[in-house]
C-alpha cells in the first residue's frame, strides 16, 4: 500500500532574532500509511510543531524549507500557494492545541465547521449547516442541533476539541494532523479525545499524524512512534516495540519519567534541551545521556535498525534491563502529628458555590493529594487554606484558628503556609532578579544580609548560585519552578500548597521536580497539599488522596487503599485514566 504521506529529508530553517536563519529541523523523514496513526513525540522545543506546520506549508514568514513532502503523488514542498489552499482542509485536516484561541471566538461553531466545507465543496449555506450538524454528531457533541449556533466559549475544553476535530474532518481528508490536541485537558477528557481520534481514523481509514509530548496518552492507540530530539529524529518504528523496548537512551528516559501508579522513583534526565543555536554537532542527546561515549560527540550517529525500529544511536539499548515496574507502593499507615485542620470550608463566588463544606486534616510531614476534574474546586480549596480569599468555615494551623488573627499576627501565621503555582513564570515578578525573588520573604522577615542564604537555597533546589542575577524571563520552566520552590522555602514554612506545580512542564522536567519535592519534604519535614488533576502524579507523591467533585470531597483515603479499592465511580475512572 502506498503511503499517504511521505517526508524525505526535510530541513526547516527559521529566522530567529539577530542570528539570521537557524535550522530547527533537519534530516527529517517519515511515512504515514493509510489508516495508520503515527505519533511524533519529543520534549517541548524539539520541533514537532514545526514539522507539522511544514506539511501544511504554514510556517512562519521567512521560513526556509527544503526536502520532499509527498502527499499522494504531489510534492507539497514545491506546491504553489493556490495549490496548497486546495490541499489544506480538503486533503489534510489539522487539529490544534489550545482550542480557545484556535477557534474564532466571534463565529458560531456551525459557521466555522461549515466554512471548511463551503470553501472546498462550494455548497450552499444550508448544505454547509447540514454538514456541520452531521459532523458535530459524529464527533460526539451531545444534542448537536441545539448547539450549532453556540460560540466556542460556550463549550467545555473537551467539547471544543471535538468541534476542532469536526472542523478538520469536514472534507473527509486523507490525513489528519493533530498537534497536541490533548495537552491542557484533564486526563479523563484527554483519553476520550484520544479514543475519538482512534475511532475516526478506523472508520474512515484515515492516516493520523499525532503530535504530543505525553507518551502515556498514545500508548493504547499509536501504530508507530517517531521520537524527535532537538530537531532530529532519534528513534522511529512500530509502537508496540517501542513501549516494550525503547532503543534510544532518550526514549528510555522519556518513558521512565512518566509517573505511573506504583512508581517508587521517577527517572530524570539531567540538563535541558538545547536551543537550536546551541545544538552540539554530534549526537544531540550526548550532553544529557547516561550512556555517553567519547565517539558520540563528533558526528551525528547514523541510524541503525533493530527489529522494525530504527534508531540514531551508536549504542542502541537492547539488552540492558529496562526498568521494571516497581512494585513497592508507598508505605501506608504512617502516622503524623496533626498540623493543619480545615473544618467545613465553603467558598462562594458571586454566583456559584465553588467549595461546600469540605473538612480534612493534614499531619506534619504528610503529603495530601487533592485530585479532581477541572473546575471541581481544587484551586479554590488551596487559596482558602492560604487565606488568599474569603471563605466560610475554619482553617486551623497548629490549633490556631486563622479567622481570629489580625494584622501582623495574621501575616506571621500566613507565612508558615507557602505556595507554588502552576505557571512558574507568572509566579515571579518579571522585573525582579532571582536573588530578589528568593530574598523577598527573608527581607520581609527583617533579615538584612540575604546573599548567603539565597545561595544556600538555590543550591538546595538544585540550581547554581550563579543564577541569582538572572531575570525570570531567561529561565526555563523547570528552573523557574525551582526558584519558586526556593522562595517558598525561604519563608521557612511548615506547609506548602502545590497547585499543579508541574502541569505546565515537560514530563522530564516534571520528573525532576517531583523528585526534588520529595527530597525536600524529607529534609525539612515539610507538609504538602498537592493539587493536581493528574492522578498518577498525585499517587506518586501523596500519602493520602482526597477526591474532589463539584466542590465536595467524595473520597479521602490513603493512596494505596484508594488505588486498590476506589469507593466511588468517579475515583475509579480517574484511576483508570492513569493506569498504563
Amino acid at each position, binding site marked *: 500500500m502506498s503511503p499517504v504521506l511521505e517526508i524525505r529529508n526535510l530541513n526547516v530553517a527559521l529566522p530567529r532574532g539577530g542570528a539570521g536563519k537557524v535550522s530547527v529541523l533537519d534530516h527529517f523523514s517519515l511515512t504515514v500509511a493509510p489508516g495508520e496513526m503515527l505519533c511524533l513525540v519529543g520534549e517541548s522545543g524539539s520541533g514537532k510543531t514545526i514539522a507539522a506546520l511544514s506539511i501544511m506549508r504554514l510556517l512562519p514568514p521567512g521560513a526556509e524549507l527544503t526536502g520532499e513532502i509527498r502527499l499522494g503523488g504531489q510534492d507539497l514542498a514545491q506546491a504553489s500557494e493556490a495549490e496548497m489552499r486546495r490541499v489544506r482542509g480538503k486533503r489534510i485536516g489539522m487539529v490544534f492545541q489550545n482550542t480557545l484561541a484556535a477557534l*474564532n471566538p*466571534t463565529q458560531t461553531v456551525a459557521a466555522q465547521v461549515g466554512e471548511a466545507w463551503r470553501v472546498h465543496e462550494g455548497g450552499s449555506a444550508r448544505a454547509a449547516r447540514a454538514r456541520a450538524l452531521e459532523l458535530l454528531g459524529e464527533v460526539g457533541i451531545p444534542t448537536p442541533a441545539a448547539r450549532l449556533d453556540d460560540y466556542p*466559549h460556550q463549550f467545555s475544553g473537551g467539547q471544543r476539541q471535538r468541534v476542532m476535530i469536526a472542523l478538520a474532518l469536514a472534507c473527509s481528508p486523507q490525513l489528519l494532523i493533530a498537534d497536541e490536541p490533548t495537552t491542557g485537558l484533564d486526563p479523563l477528557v484527554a483519553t476520550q479525545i484520544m479514543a475519538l481520534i482512534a475511532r475516526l481514523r478506523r472508520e474512515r481509514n484515515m492516516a493520523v499524524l499525532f503530535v504530543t509530548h505525553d507518551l502515556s496518552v498514545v500508548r493504547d492507540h499509536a501504530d508507530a512512534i517517531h521520537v524527535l530530539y532537538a530537531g532530529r529524529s532519534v528513534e522511529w518504528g512500530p509502537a508496540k516495540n517501542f513501549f516494550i523496548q525503547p532503543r534510544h537512551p532518550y526514549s528510555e528516559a522519556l518513558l521512565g519519567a512518566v509517573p505511573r501508579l506504583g512508581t517508587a522513583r521517577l527517572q530524570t534526565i539531567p540538563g535541558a534541551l538545547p536551543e537550536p543555536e546551541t545544538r552540539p554537532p554530534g549526537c544531540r542527546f550526548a550532553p544529557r545521556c547516561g550512556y555517553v561515549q567519547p565517539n558520540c560527540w563528533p558526528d551525528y550517529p547514523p541510524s541503525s535498525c533493530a527489529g522494525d525500529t530504527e534508531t540514531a544511536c551508536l549504542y542502541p539499548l537492547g539488552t540492558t534491563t529496562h526498568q521494571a515496574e516497581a512494585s513497592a507502593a508507598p508505605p501506608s499507615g504512617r502516622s503524623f502529628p496533626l498540623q493543619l485542620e480545615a473544618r467545613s470550608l465553603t467558598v462562594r463566588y458571586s454566583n456559584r458555590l465553588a467549595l461546600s463544606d469540605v473538612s480534612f486534616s493534614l499531619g506534619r510531614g504528610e503529603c495530601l493529594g487533592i485530585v479532581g476534574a477541572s473546575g471541581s474546586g481544587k484551586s479554590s480549596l488551596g487559596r482558602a487554606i492560604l487565606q488568599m480569599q474569603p471563605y466560610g468555615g475554619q482553617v486551623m494551623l497548629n490549633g490556631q484558628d486563622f479567622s481570629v488573627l489580625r494584622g501582623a499576627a495574621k501575616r506571621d501565621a500566613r507565612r508558615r503556609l507557602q505556595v507554588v503555582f502552576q505557571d512558574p513564570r507568572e509566579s515571579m515578578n518579571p522585573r525582579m532578579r532571582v536573588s530578589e525573588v528568593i530574598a523577598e520573604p527573608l527581607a520581609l522577615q527583617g533579615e538584612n544580609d540575604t546573599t548567603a542564604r539565597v545561595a544556600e537555597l538555590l543550591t538546595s533546589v538544585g540550581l547554581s548560585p550563579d543564577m541569582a542575577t538572572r531575570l525570570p524571563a531567561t529561565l526555563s520552566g523547570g528552573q523557574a519552578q525551582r526558584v519558586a520552590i526556593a522562595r517558598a522555602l525561604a519563608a521557612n514554612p511548615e506547609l506548602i500548597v502545590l497547585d499543579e506545580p508541574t502541569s505546565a512542564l515537560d514530563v522530564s522536567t516534571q520528573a525532576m521536580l517531583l523528585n526534588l519535592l520529595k527530597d525536600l519534604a524529607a529534609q525539612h519535614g515539610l507538609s504538602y497539599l498537592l493539587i493536581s488533576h493528574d492522578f498518577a502524579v498525585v499517587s506518586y507523591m501523596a500519602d493520602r488522596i482526597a477526591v474532589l467533585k463539584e466542590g465536595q470531597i467524595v473520597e479521602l483515603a490513603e493512596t494505596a487503599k484508594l488505588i486498590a479499592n476506589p469507593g466511588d465511580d468517579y475515583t475509579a475512572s480517574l484511576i483508570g485514566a492513569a493506569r498504563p
Partner: protein
Amino acid sequence: MMGMVLRRAASSCLSVFILVTLVFFMAHLTPGGPAYSILGQKATLASVAQVNARLGLDQPLLKQYGIWWWHLAQGQLGYSYLLNRPVSALLWGYERNTLIFYSIAIFLSTVLAILLGLIQGVYFNRWQAKLIGAFQLGFYAAPPFFVAAMLVLWFSVQAGWLPASGITNLRAEHPSLGAYAAHLVLPVITVTLLTVSPLSRYFGEAVHEELGKDYVRTAQAKGVGFTRILLAHVLRNALRPLVTMLGLSFPYIFTGGVIVESVFNYPGLGWLMWRSALSQDYPVLIAIVLVIGLLTVIGNLLADIVNGLLDPRASYE
C-alpha cells in the same frame, strides 16, 4: 448582557449628576457674573443688582441649584441670559451645525481608519505600513490649530479654492447646497485628519494582533483564502477597540471641539460652550455640560452594546 449594560448606565448617571453639580457650582463661583456680560461697561452696582434679581441670581446658591433641577424635571433647560432665547431652542441650532460637521468627519475617519488599519495590519513592518505609520505619527504630533492653519493657508489663502471659515446659512444667503458643502470641506478634513490617526493606529494594531492569533492559522489550515480570512474572520474581531474608541469620541460628534470650531469660525456646540463659559451664561453652559455627560454615558453604552453584538464573549465578562 442588557442587564449589565443598564447597570453600568445607572452608575454612570451618578457621574453625570456629580459632573453637573460640579460645573454648576464652579460656574457660579467664578468671579464676574452674567450681569456684567449683559450690561457691559455700563454696569453699575444698582443695575447689576436689578439684573441679578431678574435672573434669580440673588437667591442663595443652593436654592438656585434646587431650582435648576426642578426646572429640569419639568423639561426646562432655562433661558439664555445673553442670547435671550430658551436654551433648548438655542442648543438645537448649534447642535445641528456640529452634528452635520462631526458626523461626516467621524464617518470619514472611521472608513479611512478601517482601510488604513487593514493595510497596516497586513503589511506589518513593510514599507506600506511604515508609510501609514509615519502619517499617523505626523498627525498625532501635529497640533490641530497648526493643521487647520496650514490647510487654510494652502487651500484658501494661496489657492483660493475653498472658503476658510464660516458657514452658509441656507435660509439666509444664496440658498445653495454647494456653498454649504464647500464651507464644510476644510473643517471636516481637519477633524478627519486628526481623528483618523489614532483610530487607524489602534485598528491597525488590532488587525496585526488578530492576524497573529491561532484561529487565523486554523482558517488557513482549512484552506480559506487570505482575503476571506481578513474580511470574514479578522475584521470583526479587530473592530472592538475601534468601537470602544468611537464610543469615547461619541460626545465629540455632538459637541465638537472648541479649537477647531473657533479656527474655522464655525458655530457649533463646542464653541457655544466656550462662549457661554466666557460670558458666564450659566443656563447654556450647564445644559451643554449635561448633554456632554449624557452623551459620554450613551457613547460608552453604545460601544458596549455594539461590542456585545460583535463579540459574543463580551456578554459573559
